[in-house]
């Protein structure tokens, strides 16, 4: 009954007035950010990192985690009521959620989304509690060769899960790996790719890169269409779903939760892919596929459950292996490092209160969201009426201050500007930035593990295929890559991953 003891420790950590407050603050901010289009959790977390400098590690992680999954909730509210996804992962929710609202069932759609998310949050919390410790224990047996192969595998999976051309995604990944090497080489102290710029000798900042590409790049793209947004807000009717509705949404909710939990762990997966896949699955197995897109309640329950589950399980690789599965997790890792904690398999033993505290806070946070969200719907809807022309300068200023205070040098702001241009160009060229960011973070780690593995094996490259775990991971990577480029799979992948933008 270790799990119960451990969760007990977690709840004891969270249930202090202070941590409850930070959790509440996090989910509230997260919902706010989720509601506001153009402000994603990534940007929010980067901006809010300086807020956490003065907090202890547990409180800061609880708050940042709250922002992340709170944003999944907030995004769906606006998706249902005004057909405007506040968050990329709630794009699918607009399909049926807004149709339900149009047919006078806005309240029911909101309640379905909230219940689906809550259910998924509860299950995902337990799944993390059950699977993370054995994974961390396994990770303790990993040597450098295993870590190297694991990262190769992770990068390949992130390529397979990205949109568009596979070759471009591989290119972006390698580009990211190279960018990650900018700075002083740890082993030999040689400056690489620094062009003699002293600020580059510490490498580039992940926050500046992510904010430039996702924050600024997105703003510039949004400003292309200068037309004012107009929308009609649907009236909210009775919130409570009937017993009949509950019966109808239960199975989709369960399927969405498990699919989302699985996809959340994969690198490059996370909430967006989870919600798309869950929707596709429901549509495929539904007895009434023609109702999808016209207000099918399953089309709200499954993706909402999936995106929340995916958001939460994406903490697993970060907490157990120290490897981020998406850019948001990369920022979480920086937050932990700032706090003096090296993420990896040791966290669970050295800082059990942190590990189990985060998990317990997810459950509490989800409960808060359920209670908070439904009565406050009116307030959130008001917030969306803030015009974009007021919003975007605020985001820019916050981004500048955030990046400046994380890195303590104006150079980081220039880096962000540079990546802003690059991010915009990448959008025009249809190059997916996500594999690049993962490569950027993994680059230096991969090099270190590779060097150590080769040193131990005295230069024998076959070490990566001789060690059984490492070999298995490489086979998985190879098979994934092969499957991705097979023509038939490519076609279904295109259909499954189309972005409706």
């Amino acid at each position, binding site marked *: 009954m270790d799990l119960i003891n451990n969760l007990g420790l977690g709840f004891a950590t969270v249930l202090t007035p202070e941590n409850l407050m930070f959790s509440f603050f996090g989910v509230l901010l997260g919902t706010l950010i989720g509601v506001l289009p153009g402000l994603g959790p990534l940007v929010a977390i980067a901006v809010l990192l300086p807020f956490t400098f003065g907090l202890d590690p547990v409180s800061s992680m609880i708050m940042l985690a709250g922002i992340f999954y709170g944003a999944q909730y907030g995004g769906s509210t606006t998706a249902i009521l005004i057909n405007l996804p506040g968050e990329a992962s709630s794009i699918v929710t607009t399909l049926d959620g807004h149709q339900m609202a149009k047919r006078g069932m806005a309240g029911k759609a909101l309640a379905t989304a909230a219940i689906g998310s809550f259910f998924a949050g509860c299950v995902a919390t337990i799944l993390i509690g059950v699977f993370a410790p054995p994974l961390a224990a396994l990770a303790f047996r990993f040597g450098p060769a295993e870590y190297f192969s694991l990262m190769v595998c992770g990068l390949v999976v992130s390529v397979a899960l990205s949109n568009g051309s596979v070759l471009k995604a591989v*290119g972006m990944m390698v580009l990211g790996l190279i960018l990650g090497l900018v700075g002083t080489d740890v082993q*030999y102290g040689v400056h690489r*790719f620094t062009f003699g710029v002293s600020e580059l000798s510490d490498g580039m900042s992940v926050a500046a890169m992510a904010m430039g590409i996702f924050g600024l790049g997105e703003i*510039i793209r949004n*400003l292309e269409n200068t037309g004012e947004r107009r929308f009609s807000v649907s009236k909210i009717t009775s919130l409570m779903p009937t017993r009949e509705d509950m019966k109808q949404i239960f199975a989709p909710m369960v399927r969405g939760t498990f699919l989302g939990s699985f996809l959340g762990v994969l690198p490059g997966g996370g909430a967006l892919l989870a919600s798309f896949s869950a929707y596709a699955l429901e549509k495929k197995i539904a007895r009434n596929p023609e109702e999808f897109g016209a207000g099918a309640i399953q089309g709200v329950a499954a993706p909402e459950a999936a995106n929340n589950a995916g958001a939460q399980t994406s903490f697993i690789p970060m907490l157990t292996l120290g490897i981020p599965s998406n850019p948001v997790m990369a920022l979480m890792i920086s937050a932990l490092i700032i706090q003096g904690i090296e993420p990896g398999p040791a966290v669970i033993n050295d800082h059990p209160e942190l590990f189990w505290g985060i998990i317990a806070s997810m459950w509490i946070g989800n409960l808060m969201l359920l209670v908070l969200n439904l009565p406050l719907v009116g307030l959130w809807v008001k917030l969306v009426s803030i015009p974009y022309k007021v919003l975007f*300068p605020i985001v*820019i200023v916050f981004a500048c201050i955030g990046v400046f205070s994380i890195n303590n040098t104006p150079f980081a*702001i*220039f880096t962000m500007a540079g990546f802003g241009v690059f991010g915009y160009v990448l959008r025009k060229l249809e190059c997916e930035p996500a594999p690049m960011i993962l490569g950027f973070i993994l680059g230096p780690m991969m090099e270190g593990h590779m060097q150590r593995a080769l040193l131990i094996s005295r230069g024998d490259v076959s070490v990566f295929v001789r060690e059984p775990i490492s070999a298995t991971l490489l086979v998985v990577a190879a098979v994934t890559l092969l499957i991705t480029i097979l023509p038939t799979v490519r076609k279904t992948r295109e259909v499954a991953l189309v972005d409706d933008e």
Partner: protein
Amino acid sequence: MRQLLSKDVASGLMFTAVGALGLILMMGVDFGTTARPGPGFFPVVLSALLALIGVVQTALGLIQNREAIPPMALRPLVLIICSVCVFAFCVGRFGLVPSIFVATMIATYAQPDYGMRPRVILAAALSIFCSLLFVYALNLPIALWTF
């Protein structure tokens, strides 16, 4: 119309250029051996791989997909980047308040039909709000103004 510099060709050329640049920059750096990889080992392998990917991507782009690169919206691009750079330039020299004010003013020009009044009001409000939030409430070590 036959579009020579399509999306795919341009991305291929970009990969090739970065890969080639990486190889050139790493020329003097010790490559080492597999038994003792030097600081140039990993970057050289990656740069070569990226250049190769770039060449294949360019070739594929020339053969199949000729989708043109959509036009860039220069006005928001230039103004937003300008605003951020001005902030970076000013924040150490003049302090937070003037940096926010000027950066906001520049950024708002990215959206046409912005009146002068709302522009100034937003810039002033943001300067005050951020000073209160970041400097007074959060104690971030940033000077408000240096003159």
